[in-house]
């Protein structure tokens, strides 16, 4: 954790509301961006973020200092959002298994629409191939390439072992490269 993050966290732990707001402002968009991959429902995403920060406030004195604040927030946020999505039966009951929690890297409703800007054929090919990845493969490459988490951190978020994460990511890259 950088010095600034370290200081802000300690300050928050001591009950400084402004420090919590600082963390909130710094990470809000990243959390929303992540939530937006699971669902279109903005209310659900907002509620999950709200729930997360309120929980943090209530427990501030008991929280351990994480190695990375972003990682800690993503992990906690995912747990809250998924639980809310499952409870609200947004996911059909048969989809409640781990693998089947949907993760969208392209808008669910316009998978097949090719936008004007995408004149690059390669781009179109890649986009199609992304559609053939599993949900967890998509989530793994999202966390690695967009949120820039390490393999260990991804393993914690996805509640897998690190070998499983390597497999997810390398298989995803392979498929994107070769289509196989």
């Amino acid at each position: 954790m950088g010095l600034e993050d370290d200081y802000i966290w300690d300050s928050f732990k001591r009950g400084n509301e402004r420090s919590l707001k600082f963390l909130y402002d710094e990470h809000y968009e990243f959390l929303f961006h992540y939530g937006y991959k699971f669902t279109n429902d903005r209310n659900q995403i907002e509620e999950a973020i709200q729930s997360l920060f309120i929980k943090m406030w209530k427990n501030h004195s008991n929280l351990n200092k994480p190695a990375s604040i972003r990682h800690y927030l993503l992990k906690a946020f995912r747990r809250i959002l998924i639980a809310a999505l499952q409870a609200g039966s947004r996911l059909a009951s048969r989809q409640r298994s781990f693998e089947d929690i949907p993760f969208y890297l392209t808008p669910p409703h316009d998978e097949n629409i090719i936008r004007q800007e995408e004149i690059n054929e390669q781009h179109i090919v890649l986009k199609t191939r992304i559609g053939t990845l599993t949900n967890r493969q998509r989530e793994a490459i999202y966390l690695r390439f967009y949120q820039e988490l390490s393999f260990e951190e991804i393993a914690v978020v996805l509640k897998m072992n690190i070998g499983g994460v390597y497999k997810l990511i390398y298989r995803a890259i392979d498929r994107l490269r070769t289509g196989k």
Partner: protein
Amino acid sequence: MNRFNPYSTYSLTDLLNDDTFIFLVNKRRSDPALLDEWEQITAAGSDSGSAFREAAQIIELAAGRPLPAGDNGHEKIWKNIATEIDKTARVTPFRWWRVAALVLLLVSIGGITYHYFKHISPTVKWNTAEEQFMVVTLPDQSTVTLGANSTLTYKKNWKNGSMREVWLSGDAHFEVTHLNRDSSHINEGEKFVVHVENEMEVEVLGTVFNVRHGSGKTTVELESGSVEIVLKNRHEANVRLKPGEKAELDIAQQTLTRLLSTSRHPTPSPGDKSIELNNTSVKEIIQMIETTYHKNIEVADTSLLSRRIDGTFPICHEKDVWFILSSILDINIEIKSDDSLVLQPR
């Protein structure tokens, strides 16, 4: 310096495995300089260019769709959070100004208490008249034998650990309770200070000494222990006396002279013995001394003999007696080599 250059030999897989490369590709979006560097290196036709472009495409696609425009509930949700925080914090809201006010209050109370004890607390004042002496016991059990026409003042309450102070005008013989344990480390709280008018301060540890103040000079004579004399005018350096030494301050000249005292060390005898004197003549006293101490006493001026003294006469130390006598009668006592005493007017 093109930050993408080091990657020119990397394969697609290598690039996608490199934390820094991933970071740079993401950062291009917000950094125009970085974007320029990117454009240079991926100029159409270069070999590495295609690997770079493909890697960048994968990295960008992995982001998925972007956020909708607007603040996406950023402000609204914080309001809800803040409300919740206020609810739970209402019991003891932490307000800086309350803490500051409390601290200020405590400091003021502390200040007033300190000021009270230092300046306003009751003082004790002892005066002796002509031909009178008095033994005063101080709050720390030190004893002060006040000579004639002298005044001793001190605060009634002495705190443990604070410096002990008395103010003297006239003559006194001090026996100070020793508090210091380690002579190489003397605390302020272990000191005993005698303020002699505005002229000097005698700092004492545990000690028997005399202070004489009058006739244009102040004398401090040390029997045992150690004292440090601090001149108020500060022109002269402090003087530390050893037992048997005497320091004489000439008030007009403001010079301090160190001398060997002409008195000898006392032989302390145990017990608190004293005699009540009620208008007793000096003659009787001298007779009593001669008997008790087996000394021969010569009186130069016989008119001394008829003078009378009131008070309690302590007889623990021989030296006390000479001191008191000399003070009361305003005489000098000289001890001759054959141990006899000569009393002369000053």
